[in-house]
Every structure is written in structure tokens, then in C-alpha cells.
């Protein structure tokens, strides 16, 4: 029992670290997504006048 209890305690610490790492990785991806959204907006904005001219 003792061994299992101590092992669990150790494992909890490891898992907490692992969860933290996944969280950090997600944050990086969130930033990337924001970057993509900004770029996409820029492209749309540069496309708008072209389309306007095309229609006329």
C-alpha cells in the first residue's frame, strides 16, 4: 500500500507537469491561429478593391 501511495503521489506530480506542458503547447497554437486570422484579414482586404474593379 505504502509503495502504491507514494508511487501515486509521484505520478500525480508527473501528470501535472505533463498537463502543464500540453497547456503551454496549446497557447502557442492559439497565437499561431491569431496570426493566421490576421493574415487572412489582410488578404481579404487587399482582395476587396480588386473585386470591386472586376465587377465594374
Amino acid at each position, binding site marked *: *500500500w505504502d509503495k*502504491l501511495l507514494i508511487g501515486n503521489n509521484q505520478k500525480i506530480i508527473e501528470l501535472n507537469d505533463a498537463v502543464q506542458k500540453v497547456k503551454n503547447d496549446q497557447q502557442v*497554437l492559439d497565437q*499561431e491561429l491569431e496570426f*493566421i486570422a490576421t493574415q487572412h484579414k489582410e488578404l481579404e482586404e487587399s482582395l476587396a478593391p*480588386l473585386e470591386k474593379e472586376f465587377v465594374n
Partner: protein
Amino acid sequence: ETETHALYMKKVDGELQELRQRHASATAKILEHKRKLAEMGHRILRIVVKQECTRKV
């Protein structure tokens, strides 16, 4: 109780494994999106250049 803990942590281990896989797949998709955006930016630029030329002629 201690055994339940051990069992639960095994489950968490598996979930984390799955999350890492999803993360890897999301990273790949993001890279692909970035590549696509760069490509579309290039295409838009080409249209702008051609349109400008047409206008001057």
C-alpha cells in the same frame, strides 16, 4: 482508494497521449494554413500587378 487513484491516473495518461496526437495534427494543419496563406498572398499580388498593367494600357 489508492488503487482507484492509480487507475484514474492511467486513464489520464491515455488522455494526455491523445491530446498530444491532436496537438501534433493541429500543428500540421496550422503549417498547411500558413503555406496556403502565403501562396494566396502571392497570387493576389500577381493579380494586382496585372490589373495595374491593364489599367495603364
